[in-house]
């Protein structure tokens, strides 16, 4: 399969996961919301959250055992940038109420206007950040 067909197939699997979670547990498959519920001090329903995150982490490892390739790539920036980026992603996804999965996939699938706007905003800021770091004169 070429990489674009594989990417679309991967997307279908992500969609099936989202549909399964809604059908069985009535929950949006938003990674930041599910995982942040483990540390927010308010949510008490840790069981399903923990199981979902465990499956997410285990999946590429299992793929690696079965097919030889986990698909996990290497970080592209140094540790200080990784820490800064992690902090921004953490704060931003919680304050903004979602990430690429909650807003970008589930929200857009529900035609939620807030999710459409949020997705456009984080895409635009992501594009602008890459441009600023890699294409402005004197940079990388």
């Amino acid at each position, binding site marked *: 399969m070429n990489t674009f067909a594989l990417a679309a197939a991967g997307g279908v699997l992500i969609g099936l996961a989202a549909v399964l979670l809604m059908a069985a547990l009535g929950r949006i*498959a938003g990674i930041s919301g599910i995982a942040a519920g483990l540390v927010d001090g308010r949510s008490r329903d840790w*069981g399903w959250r923990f199981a979902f995150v465990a499956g997410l982490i285990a999946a590429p490892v299992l793929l690696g055992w079965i097919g030889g390739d986990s698909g996990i790539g290497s970080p592209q920036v140094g540790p200080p940038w990784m820490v*800064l980026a992690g902090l921004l992603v953490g704060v931003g*996804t919680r304050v903004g*109420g979602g990430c690429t999965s909650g807003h970008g996939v589930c929200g857009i699938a529900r035609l939620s206007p807030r999710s459409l706007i949020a997705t456009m905003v984080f895409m635009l800021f992501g594009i602008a950040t890459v441009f600023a770091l890699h294409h402005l004169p004197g940079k990388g």
Partner: protein
Amino acid sequence: MKILIALIAGLLFGVGLSLGGMTQPAVVLGFLDIFGHWDPRLAFVMAGAVLTTAIGYRWVLGRRRPWLETSFRLPTATRFDARLIGGAAVFGIGWGIAGYCPGPALASLGAGAPSLLAFVAAMVTGWWLAARLAAAKQ
């Protein structure tokens, strides 16, 4: 049963991310780099996921309740406020710096790259901080 379903959903999600190239930050940064060597793979992943979810949700949300819970827990907020826009902007900047959003970052933990561990630790700290700030305001 809830635990088992959540585990299966997580596995499906992780396999989808991996097959789609999303656990490679170079692919994600390539998508955001529309002025360089653009890599459209993320758009194919999003399209496949959004279409599948939209079709599936039509079927699921037409039912009275989920299989294992008493009600669907759907977001109720409708306002476009500073939190939504500002949060998305801050997230976008972090995403553009490293090429990781929360799903792929967690799904890449199995490889054990030290700087990715640092990213996830910082991300979890960010979640905790945001929850503390929200709690302090109430």
